[in-house]
């Protein structure tokens, strides 16, 4: 069980878990971040304060602590048990990343000239139409670079899932190491590099696609 092919196979299994966590987190935290962004820009002060406090707490504490809190918190506080590990860790990641994304969205929206909103208003568009037809593409164009940074960080942050014993790729490699086989641990780097490489190409493609929007 220590030849290259079988190690690769084992690591791939772990990487499957990594990818699963990554994609689900991304799919949920991107829209959640937008909702939080609207909350943090709301004219309704209590809502704005609540959202900004959440963002402060989440950005101000280690992700590892948050994973532990989300997994053990319900039991410690209310005695509720029975949550699976993977959904728990995904919940923690979604909360964390939604907060980071929300700040990127907010910065992006606020950087769009007020005249764009006003032009839409004067033309009788609804707020929803203004956001999706006028603002959204310009926003996307501006946030792809900072977003790609966060998303690439997420790829690697998934390795924190092992603090609640989720067997992702690093955990698999550590199990090998514990049995005396060190090199698989370094080999995991290749998986991350390849994955991030693909993402980088994807982001570059997106940026090129949107370069026609001159701002």
């Amino acid at each position, binding site marked *: 069980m220590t030849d290259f092919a079988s190690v690769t196979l084992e690591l791939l299994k772990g990487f499957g878990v990594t990818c699963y966590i990554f994609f689900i987190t991304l799919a949920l935290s991107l829209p959640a971040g937008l909702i939080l962004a609207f909350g943090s820009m709301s004219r309704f002060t209590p809502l704005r304060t609540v959202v900004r406090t959440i963002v402060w707490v989440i950005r101000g504490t280690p992700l590892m602590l948050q994973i532990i809190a989300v997994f053990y918190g319900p039991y410690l506080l209310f005695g509720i048990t029975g949550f699976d590990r993977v959904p728990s860790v995904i919940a923690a990641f979604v909360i964390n990343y939604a907060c980071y994304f929300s700040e990127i969205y907010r910065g992006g929206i606020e950087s769009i*000239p007020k*005249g*764009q909103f*006003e*032009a*839409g*208003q*004067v*033309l*009788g*568009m*609804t*707020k929803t*139409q203004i956001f999706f*037809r*006028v603002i959204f*593409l*310009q926003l996307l*164009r501006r946030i792809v670079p900072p977003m790609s940074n966060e998303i690439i960080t997420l790829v690697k942050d998934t390795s924190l899932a092992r603090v609640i014993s989720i067997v992702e790729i690093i955990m698999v490699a550590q199990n090998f190491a514990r049995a005396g086989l060190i090199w698989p641990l370094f080999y995991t780097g290749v998986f991350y590099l390849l994955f991030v490489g693909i993402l980088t190409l994807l982001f570059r493609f997106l940026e090129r696609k949107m370069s*026609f*929007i*001159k*701002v």
Partner: protein
Amino acid sequence: MERLRVEGFRKKFHDTEVLKGVDFCLPKGEILAIIGASGSGKTTLLRCLNFLETPDAGKIYLDGELLADASAHYKERELREKRKKFGLVFQSFNLFPHYRAEKNVSLAAELMAKEEAKDFRRNLKRELLSQKVPRARTTARAEAKAFLKKRLEDIRLRAGELLCKVGLSEKKDSYPYELSGGQQQRVAIARALMLDPEVLCFDEPTSALDPELTDEVLRAIRSLKGRTMIVVTHEMAFAREVADKVIFMADGVIEEQGTPEEVFGDPKSEKTRAFLRRRGEQ
């Protein structure tokens, strides 16, 4: 016939009173030029008319009917309906950078047509269902689709005509960044015309332009003569030549108003005289 009447417009930002009670009226088809130094409240007045700002007090009458009263609270939907009565061309154009010229002109009308098609389908479906017509849903959907298709074709045609009118028919597929400032502003004029507003407003339409580009924009505005328009401008020559009526604003009030001959030729107020002298008009 009187198209627009504004009564008692007041607006305060924090502690500064920008409009201190502005009243004026504008007959249908006439052009009103508003002149005055920066900070005199010209732009705020225009923004209040377009519901971008809510005045603290004041009323707007359109064709003799009350359109808006600052003391009333309007729902978003009502506000949108009222806004459509006015068009606004901005100082900084504010074209949508991700749409081609033609789409910039047609977008708002297209969105409205889509809403209409949705209502059309809903009503037709209800009617057909109440008459127990078979396949009511499918029929309604098909009819609404045909309705929308026709509307969108008309809109595109109209957008083309308007671009032609401002002399940009060959630029309809250009993105805003591919156009000069003057061309961008002319697209913005076409865009404002698309919804056929009762009163078309211009907020210093040439201030952001290089001097050699102002003429083409002024020419485009001039070609709209016959529409009811309000032009806030620093171009005294333009105001003098094109306007039917001139308002001089100073410190949030209308200091003087009248025909261009009266205001430019024989100003009554000392402030007007001083302003025009500084501008080299007297």
